[in-house]
């Protein structure tokens, strides 16, 4: 079996499972946030069970509308806090204590290899970077999970994506991710899992692997996953003392198909409006004028991303007339960026550094776009209206491309920047 089938077999208490079988699986960890949590809590209460299945296994994170930007958001946050209190769940990451849910889940040791994790957020697939089977679900499904600790799942068939070649700065794992989406397309993996393998993946950092798995959903996938290696284990062991069983794809693993990519000569990539699979090389769209640049989100708000942006912004300034917004993905990333002087670099360059939140990426608050405006963003979706007005345009690219573009006021290939060439 491959890693996906092995984890699902374990969760179903079975020796073996096969693609397309429907199983009832035991969930190891469940995550809710402030946008989907209140509906899940409502569903849980309607089921009529008094206590959630395991209070230590339910993680609540406030991240989308934080700090509250409206009275409604404040009420929603209150619902989340009251639920955590009433159910005595020890893991509530409130404002100032966590950050973007997927980053917090990984940083705080709630994600362990070989586990089945469900989250009421589509980018839950990020945790596949640590070898967990993690998938996004809706609020009613989550209500049932809170009540029973179980979920029915159809075992997906798996696409294996084998990547060879070196990622050379200023090309980044984000460019690889966009390139993969270009090849698979936005509906190329509906109902399927994607396993990433090969020397390039082995070489990639945990942070880079998270970027890759994070965007598996943008191809319709149920999850993106990477078999754990020494890098994974050393990361996880620093974050949790709990035991876990490492699961990797077996030599007999079967796949629906295998896609081989060599990225030795990969140039910086960019997803053009209004679809994530509308991917081109940055050099093809250079010169498009921008109004806003955004570095952050569960896709690219980690320390490595900020370090790369700082290399570009250290000796440059954000072009007059352009807004550069930077949101570190978590309090931990924020503190590390503060201590290592990155935040000072950003502020001096004329960037606006915001608190860890999903705000700008999902068009909730902190940086919405006006009609006719153009934004270049490190986030994961460039759908029409995603970041504000339906008449605004969004381009998705790496932190290097976004930082470089913010200094020129137009889409700019980061290979033009001397310091990172």
């Amino acid at each position, binding site marked *: 079996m491959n890693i996906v089938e092995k984890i699902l077999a374990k969760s179903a208490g079975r020796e073996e499972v096969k693609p397309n079988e429907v199983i009832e699986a035991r969930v190891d960890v469940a995550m809710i946030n402030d*946008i989907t949590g209140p509906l899940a809590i409502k569903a849980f209460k309607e089921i009529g069970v008094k206590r959630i299945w395991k209070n230590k296994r339910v993680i609540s994170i406030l991240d989308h509308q934080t700090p509250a930007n409206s009275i409604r958001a404040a009420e929603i946050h209150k619902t989340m806090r009251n639920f955590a209190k009433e159910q005595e769940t020890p893991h509530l990451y409130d404002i100032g204590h966590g950050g973007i849910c997927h980053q917090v889940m990984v940083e705080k040791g709630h994600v362990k290899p070989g586990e089945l994790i469900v*989250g009421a957020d*589509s980018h839950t697939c990020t945790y596949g970077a640590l070898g967990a089977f993690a998938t996004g*679900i*809706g609020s009613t499904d989550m209500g049932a999970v809170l009540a029973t600790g179980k979920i029915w799942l159809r075992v997906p068939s798996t696409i294996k994506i084998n990547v060879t070649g070196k990622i050379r700065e200023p090309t980044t794992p984000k460019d690889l991710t966009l390139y993969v989406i270009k090849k698979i397309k936005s509906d190329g993996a509906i109902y399927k899992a994607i396993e990433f393998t090969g020397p390039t993946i082995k070489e990639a950092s945990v942070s880079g692997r998270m970027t890759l798995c994070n965007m598996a959903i943008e191809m319709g996938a149920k999850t993106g996953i990477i078999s754990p290696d020494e890098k994974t284990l050393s990361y996880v062991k620093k974050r949790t003392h709990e035991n876990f069983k490492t699961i990797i794809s077996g030599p007999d693993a079967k796949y629906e198909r295998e896609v081989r990519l060599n990225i030795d000569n990969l140039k910086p990539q960019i997803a053009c409006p209004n679809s994530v699979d509308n991917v081109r090389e940055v050099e093809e769209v250079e010169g498009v004028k921008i109004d806003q640049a955004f570095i952050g989100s569960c896709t690219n708000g980690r320390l490595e991303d900020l370090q790369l942006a700082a290399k570009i912004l250290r000796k440059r300034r954000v072009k007059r007339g352009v807004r550069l917004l930077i949101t570190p993905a978590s309090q931990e990333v924020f503190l590390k960026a503060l201590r290592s002087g990155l935040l000072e670099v950003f502020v001096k360059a004329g960037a606006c550094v915001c608190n860890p939140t999903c705000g700008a990426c999902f068009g909730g608050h902190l940086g919405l776009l006006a009609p006719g405006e153009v934004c270049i963003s490190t986030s994961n979706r460039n759908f029409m209206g995603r970041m504000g007005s339906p008449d605004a345009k969004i381009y998705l690219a790496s932190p290097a491309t976004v930082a470089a573009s913010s200094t020129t006021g137009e889409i700019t290939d980061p290979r033009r920047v001397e310091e990172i060439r």
Partner: protein
Amino acid sequence: MKVTGRAVIFGDNINTDLIIPGRYLTLTDPHELARHAMEPIDPKFPQKAREGVVIIAGKNFGCGSSREQAPIALKHAGARCIIAKSFARIFYRNAINIGLPVLESRKASEKIGEGELLEIDLEEGVILNKDKNQVIHADKLPRLILEIIRDGGLISHLKRRRKDEV
């Protein structure tokens, strides 16, 4: 189990940000959500849907976020059924879980025109175009999913099952 309504046609990759933009997700009243259904792509949708409609769409309907507010907004705006070439999986589960019927058919979007009157037999997966007197076959739904839809969603389904067991 039959549903009827006039067809409203959409294309491929109708994502959850088009169905209900992120800035409305703090709304908790389904009817308030419904007022903004499809706003970025078709601001008149709630008006059109008031009498009850069937959404006909292309591939990958509902891609993007896990927000259950998306099928909730459509259902309360008046969508009685969605027929698409394919669905994104989280949306598909969410729609069923709130009792909004979803059918997959590769032919529906090619054969049905805007405003045509449809009658759908959910058990049989048969779409009758009353205006053209034409029958189109969709993929049949599995029994469990039909039961959940008949009960009005997963929660009522679980409640009924618990009652039946007692």
